[in-house]
């Protein structure tokens, strides 16, 4: 990945290598550098900080254990870490059996896609491309994909949210992923 302005990715790669070798100091630095961004991801999905704290704790214990599995092929360290946090958060939601009360999931998700379109960084360029490709989808499938990613909605929750049959929602997601890939690769 090319280094953009303020892009800390090369250092995170380095830290990940040290963490894989059981360097606890590097682990602490990795936490210091990435926890605020990752905590935001957990809070967005779980809506309550107490739940998000538990998820962040679980995720980092798992990151410490799984660091030797990390390979740059799996994406940047940040997206690898975010995937672990998101999966933990989604599992926590499933265990809770219901979405905790909190900030309502509204069009705010879509606002990320617009507000973050800052093309001065690599992420901004990528978000620009993602946003442009999402816009080529039908409105409901598009929102379903964004809700699934941003808020960890399950197929069942998406079906309830969009008042659509489960099978329909599942095929929205699959079709959307297929079209997104064509658009993003093209």
């Amino acid at each position, binding site marked *: 990945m090319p280094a953009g302005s303020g892009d800390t990715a090369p250092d995170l790669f380095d830290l990940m290598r040290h963490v894989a070798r*059981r360097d*606890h*100091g590097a682990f*602490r630095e990795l*936490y210091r550098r990435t*926890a*605020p*961004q990752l*905590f*935001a*991801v957990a*809070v967005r999905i779980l809506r309550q*900080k107490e739940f998000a*704290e*538990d998820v*962040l*704790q*679980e995720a*980092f*214990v798992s990151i*410490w254990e799984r660091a030797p*599995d990390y*390979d*740059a*092929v*799996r*994406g*940047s360290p940040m*997206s*690898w870490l*975010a*995937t672990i946090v*998101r*999966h933990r958060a989604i*599992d926590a939601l499933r265990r809770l059996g219901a979405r905790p009360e909190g900030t309502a999931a509204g069009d705010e998700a879509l606002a*990320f*896609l617009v*507000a*973050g379109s*800052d093309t001065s960084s690599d*992420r*901004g360029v*990528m*978000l620009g*491309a*993602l946003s442009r490709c999402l816009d080529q989808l039908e409105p409901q499938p598009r929102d379903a994909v964004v809700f*699934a*990613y*941003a808020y*960890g*909605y*399950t*197929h069942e929750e998406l079906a309830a949210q969009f008042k659509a049959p489960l099978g329909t929602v599942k095929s929205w*997601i*699959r079709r959307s*992923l*297929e079209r*997104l*890939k064509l658009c*993003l690769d093209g």
Partner: protein
Amino acid sequence: MNYDDPKLRSILAGEYVLGTMPPRTRARFEQLMRYDAGLARLVGDWAERFGSIDAGAPPVEPPPRVWTAIEARTLPGAMRSKPIRFPFWRGLALASSAVAIALLIFVATKTDMPAPQPHVVAVVTDEDNRPCWLVTEDKGRGTLSVAAVWSPTRDAKHEFELWAVADSKPVPIGLIPVVRDQIATFRASALPKGGVTLAVSLEPTGGSPTGSPTGPILYHGVVLTD
């Protein structure tokens, strides 16, 4: 499921990243990814693309207790695998910090009256920065005193153990009192030199059997440099 169809592989990788995969399917998919670099790469691509959504969101600073718990579970020698939760922290009533510190300095200096004036080397606090133990050093006697400024809740099977942490490596100092105004004394040389953090963990009676913290690290302090 046919994991050879390129279109399907990409869709499954996308579902993995989105999080819409049911947990058992996800676990199976992770197993496949270990031996299928192509699949891992597809996951990496999707994670990178969707990750740009996270990068656009404002960061939120987690409270320090999250790292404390992670550290307690990952430091070499940490045996704890269960999640650490902090219910008792959330309704803990303590005297105000200023009053407690003033009281303690009085207690500490009074106890060591004949010796040269001991000086405060650290205040061990809970996650809300409320003082729990005061650590003073008496250079004349070469002693380190740890005084409780509160009476923490703990069951009869546990004790609190004080550790000096330098370079992420905890060195045991000893068991510390749990009744307000009680003082435990150690050799001052127990404290390693330079940039030391203090940590208090909850241990079985008699202290950690391994020489490293085995229970959660619940309290912290920073050694004040001269």
